[in-house]
Structure formats: structure tokens, C-alpha cells
């Protein structure tokens, strides 16, 4: 009679607590949104939080997250622009700000004109119904992904960017997500649609309001982003995760590349006690992508990046350089799958995972994976794990630099190679500074 009770229930209350806190969400004018929410709530009856027995989570133990009692963020504190202006990226003339996942119109500078739409969902649901219905929830799969399902069940505010056909956005758009409250779950959601022939740069930026104080307490950011590139579109996507060192950050991003489109992604993970980023990219014929990543963590942090590059059609090109720097007893995980489907001939794919361990206690699990079902392809992958190269250290010392300066410069350089690829000057400079400070402080 205890059969039911003995079925392991890994949520151990966390999922239930969060769902109990599920607010009665206002019905959306878009039927699709309402249907997705309902479906996600149903799925959550079946899904449970992952354990290390799940293949996709075998390196990442989220039990510290499960021990928390978290409630959905129902409201956010009122912030003044002065409180957060230091997060603004000067090149970005349009910006959407979300505080604990909730849209803050007074802090945003939205745009909705012939050129581009950068807005919260509610404001454009009617005017852009067709575009949104065509893409929303169709790329990021939630039926077997508990975190994406949770995000979908809580769907409310959504950052929507639509770049119309052949429009080239010269300035980047910043989507700024600010965490302010402890013991809450925030549910950021983004939809980016780059219509045929358009170009855009999108910065997805996750920050914490103060670097001290309550951040000693945990919260969970559970984000989902969908990016659609229609034929010939180009999107630069920069993702920065610099949340508090006690927080949990889980994000799913699905990118769909149309014919001959080009997607360039740089993701940087610096914060969070445990972070997990799933990036799934699907390429149509002749599409190209570059996925570059840097995880720079220390102490007891864990940063897990799972990517899947799916070459669904011929002539696709993918490039990936993922780097991790782990200090303290930190743990970095990289799982990079490259799929080449039958018929995706002439695929050209290069993937590299490079890892730098600064201490004997730091740990890395890296798993590049190739799954090739076509016979005329060029695919390379490789992984390196190591400490600083003695010959490199010697080279710098032979130029007069002290041992510690030489080591911190090389560590910085290891990370800076990724930061250099960010096409937004002020952000690149700022992150280079952060990388410099973090790498010097650890040596």
C-alpha cells in the first residue's frame, strides 16, 4: 500500500512550494500564451526536479537548491534609475529592465516604431499577435524540461524584440534582469525575432542589485529565451550572468537559424552558487553560428554549460570555443553536443573546450560529443584541461614580470580571448576589468 508513497519524489517540496505560490495570472489576449501556461502546469504534475541519475544532470548536483524554500516573485521593489544606472550599457539606446523578472517600465527605454520593437509582451501582444503566436514557445521545449515548464507556467512579463525585414539595428539592445529579493523565484522570458535580412545585437544581462547584504541569501533565476533568425538574418547575442554568489541560475535558450542566417553568441558566467545554461541551436541550410563561452568561477561555485548544435540541413557552419577557469574548489561542467543529421552534408563544425584549473581542488567535467549521421562532413572537436603552461610563465618572467604578475596576466589572457569577441566596446571593457580583477585576486 505504500507503493505510491515510495516513489521517489525528488522535488522534496520545492516544486510544490513554488507552484502553491503560483499567482492567478491575468489572462493574456493571446490564446497561445494561455494554452502554453495551462499545458506547462499540467506537465509539472508529471515532471520532477532532476537528480544526478538524469544523464543531462550527471555532473551537476542541485540538491543545495532543493533544500531552499522559494516562492514566486509576485512584486518587485521600486527602483530609481540612479540605483541601477551603473548597469546600463552606454551603446544600448533601447533597454528593457526587469526587476525580479517583473517588467519595470519606468527604468526601460522601449521602442516600437517602424524600425524595431523592443517591448514588454503586454504592450505589443495585440499589435504583434501574429509574430508572437508564430514563434512563442515553439523553440524552447518545455514538455520534458522541468525548469522550462516552470518558467512557462509562470509566464507573464516577456521581453519581446522584433526586428523587421532588412532592418539593421546599429545599436545593441540591452535586456537587463536585476535580482533584488531573497528566497524568490524569478522567471525571465525573452523572445527575439530577427526577420529576413535583418541584423541585431542583443545583450541579455543578469545582475544582482548589490554585491553585499542580503545576497548572502539565495534566490533562483529561471530564465527561458527564444531567438529566431529568419533567412539571412544576423544576430549577435551576448549573455552575461553575474548574479550573487549564493544564488541559483538556470536558463534555457533555444535558437532557430533560418537559411543562410548567422548567429554569434558569447556567454559569460561569473556569478551564482550553481548555474546551468542550456543553449540549443538548430541550423537550416547554409546557416552559420559561433558559440563562445567563458565560465570564470571560484570558491564553491558550480557553472554548468550544456550546448547542442543541431545541423539539420546541409552546408551549415558551426564554431565553438568554450573556456572555463576554476579557482578554489569550484566545479565547471561543459557538455557540448554537435549533431549532424542525415542529409546535412557539407557540414563544417569545429568545437573546442579549454579548461584552466587554478587550484588542486578545482574540478572540471568536459564532454564534447559528436553525433554524425551524414557522410560528407568536416567535424573537429577537442578538449584540454590544464594549469598554466610553464613555458608561457617563463616567457613572461624572462621579460621581467614577477611570477605572480605573469600568472595573473596569463589567466586573464585565457579568459580575455572570449571577452575580446564581444562586439560591444563598453561591455567588453567592463568585463575585461572584471576578469582581470577576479583572476588577479585568485593568484
Amino acid at each position, binding site marked *: 500500500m505504500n507503493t505510491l508513497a515510495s516513489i521517489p519524489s525528488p522535488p522534496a517540496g520545492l516544486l510544490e512550494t513554488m507552484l502553491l505560490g503560483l499567482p492567478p495570472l491575468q489572462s493574456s489576449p493571446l490564446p497561445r500564451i494561455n494554452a502554453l501556461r495551462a499545458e506547462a502546469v499540467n506537465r509539472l504534475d508529471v515532471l520532477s526536479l532532476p537528480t544526478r541519475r538524469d544523464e543531462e544532470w550527471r555532473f551537476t548536483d542541485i540538491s543545495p537548491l532543493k533544500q531552499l524554500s522559494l516562492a514566486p516573485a509576485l512584486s518587485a521593489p521600486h527602483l530609481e534609475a540612479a540605483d541601477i544606472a551603473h548597469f546600463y550599457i552606454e551603446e544600448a539606446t533601447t533597454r528593457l529592465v526587469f526587476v525580479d523578472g517583473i517588467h519595470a517600465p519606468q527604468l526601460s527605454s522601449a521602442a516600437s516604431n517602424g524600425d524595431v520593437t523592443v517591448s514588454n509582451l503586454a504592450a505589443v501582444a495585440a499589435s504583434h499577435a501574429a509574430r508572437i503566436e508564430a514563434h512563442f514557445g515553439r523553440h524552447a521545449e518545455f514538455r520534458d524540461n522541468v525548469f522550462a515548464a516552470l518558467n512557462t507556467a509562470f509566464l507573464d512579463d516577456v521581453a519581446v524584440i522584433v526586428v523587421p525585414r532588412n532592418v539593421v539595428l546599429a545599436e545593441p539592445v540591452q535586456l537587463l534582469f536585476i535580482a533584488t529579493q531573497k528566497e524568490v523565484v524569478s522567471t525571465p522570458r525573452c523572445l527575439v525575432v530577427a526577420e529576413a535580412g535583418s541584423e541585431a545585437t542583443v545583450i541579455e544581462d543578469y545582475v544582482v542589485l548589490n554585491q553585499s547584504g542580503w545576497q548572502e541569501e539565495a534566490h533562483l533565476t529561471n530564465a527561458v529565451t527564444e531567438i529566431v533568425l529568419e533567412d539571412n538574418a544576423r544576430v549577435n547575442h551576448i549573455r552575461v550572468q553575474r548574479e550573487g554568489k549564493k544564488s541559483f541560475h538556470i536558463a534555457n535558450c533555444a535558437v532557430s537559424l533560418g537559411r543562410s542566417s548567422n548567429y554569434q553568441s558569447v556567454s559569460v558566467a561569473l556569478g551564482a552558487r550553481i548555474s546551468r545554461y542550456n543553449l540549443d541551436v538548430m541550423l537550416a541550410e547554409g546557416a552559420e553560428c559561433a558559440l563562445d563561452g567563458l565560465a570564470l568561477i571560484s570558491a564553491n561555485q558550480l557553472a554548468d554549460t550544456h550546448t547542442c548544435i543541431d545541423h539539420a540541413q546541409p552546408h551549415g557552419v558551426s564554431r565553438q570555443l568554450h573556456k572555463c577557469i576554476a579557482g578554489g574548489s569550484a566545479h565547471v561542467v561543459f557538455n557540448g553536443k554537435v549533431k549532424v543529421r542525415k542529409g546535412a552534408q557539407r557540414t563544417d563544425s569545429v568545437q573546442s573546450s579549454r579548461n584552466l584549473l587554478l587550484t588542486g581542488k578545482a574540478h572540471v567535467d568536459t564532454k564534447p560529443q559528436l553525433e554524425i549521421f551524414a557522410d560528407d562532413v568536416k567535424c573537429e572537436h577537442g578538449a584540454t584541461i590544464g594549469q598554466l603552461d610553464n613555458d608561457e610563465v617563463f616567457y613572461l618572467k624572462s621579460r621581467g614580470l*614577477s611570477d605572480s604578475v605573469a600568472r595573473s596576466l596569463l589567466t586573464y589572457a585565457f579568459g580575455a580571448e572570449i571577452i575580446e569577441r564581444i562586439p560591444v566596446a563598453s561591455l567588453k571593457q567592463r568585463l575585461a576589468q572584471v576578469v582581470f580583477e577576479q583572476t588577479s585576486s585568485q593568484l
Partner: protein
Amino acid sequence: MIYQDSKPILQVHGLCATVNGIEILKDLDFTVKSGEVHAIMGPNGSGKSTFAKVLAGHTAYEVTAGSVLFEGKNLFELEPDERARAGVFLAFQYPIEIPGVANSQFLRLSYNTVQAQRGHEELDPLEFDDFVREKMKLLEMSPNFLDRSVNEGFSGGEKKRNEILQMALLDPRLAILDETDSGLDIDALRVVAEGVNQLATKDNAIILVTHYQRLLNYIVPDFVHVMEAGRIIKTGGKELAVELESRGYDWVGVENNATMALS
């Protein structure tokens, strides 16, 4: 050039060194005075590059016996970075690439570190930019090389020029050029050699470690040493290099063995 009353810069006595427990340098004696240019030649594996790296302080090489005085002081008491700041410079055979660090940033950091040690003024980025561009002209280097990452994607010749640029900036008392000529086409060789010639003064000294006589057509040595099996087996003037080129290293070995047998 050989000067009267010049001071010794480097005095090596009975130097023995090992790599991974294998003895490479065996009882090496060698003296360099200020103003002089020495060439060390020898076949692969004779210990030339090991000697260069031991002088610069590479940790993979263990000194097991002997002494090296640099300007009268025990060189082995200094860490590699201290040697560099004291005026020892090694131009690498295979310069290291450092993606992510701009060449200008690296050159300035290095220059300022050495300047500070000598009690000289450090240069800010703008001042340094003027200064380094002047030095780059010497090596016919494009200023583009300042913005690129250190040695990354440089051709073999460009890397060697960048090494000599560092020599020009750091103004060492003793410069050791480890196979700086290898892999260079004749134009690059000429530019690099002319750069080195302009840096040679009566107060510094240069050791050219090379496999080929070709370099010595452009940088004329005062002494040519032949190294074999970890020691110097023959020393002569610049004409020795020409003889080596035509007769090969075996000739020296044979002659030397014969001399030893006779004595």
C-alpha cells in the same frame, strides 16, 4: 667588437646542467666581455639552446655544478624575472603566443617593470606608444603589431622581429639570441640582423646561438665557438664559421679528437 679594458659581463666556469636527469651541459667554460659578439654554433642536441635557457633561468633545467657570474654576481641567485630586470635578455627560438593580451600592453608592462628596477621613469600608454613606434621602425614593423595579441598569428619572421623589438625596449646588458635566424627568409634575416647591429654597443654583449653560418654574414661575431656534447670544443674568429659551413661539424669533432689524442 673587442675593446681594450672592457669588463667581463658573463663568466661561466665548469657549468653542468641536466634536463629530466639527463646531463646536457658538461663542464662548460665561457667568458663574454662588454662590447663583444659571440656566436655559439654546433649541431642539434649539442646543448646550445640548453645553455641559453640555463642563463635565462628556465626551471626545466637543473644546474648540477659550476658557476655563472653576471657582472661579477652569482646569476643563479636570481629568479628569471630578476635576471631580466638585471639585464639578461633571451630572444626565444619559439616565442610564446599569448592570445588575449595586446602586444602593446605586454611590451609596456615589461618595459615599465624593467625601467622601474633601474630607477627610471615609467611611461604612460601615450608616451610608450611614441617610444615603441620609433623602435619598431628599426625592425621595419608595422604599428599594427601593437594592437594584435602577443605573437598570435604572427609569422615566424614577425615573431623574431617582435623578440628583437623587446630587446630594443629592454636595453639588456647581455642579449642571448637563440636561433633567431632559423625560419627567416633572407629579407627578414637582413632586417633582424641590422636591428641587432644597431643595438650592439660597447657596454653590452651579444651571444648568438645558431645552427647556420648565414646569420654571421650579417652580424659579424668577434668569437665563434663550436659546441658539442655539452661543451665548447673549439673557439676561433669569424673565419671559423665559414670553415664550419664548408667542412661541417664533423670536421671539428675529428680535429678536436685528434688534438686530444696527440696531447
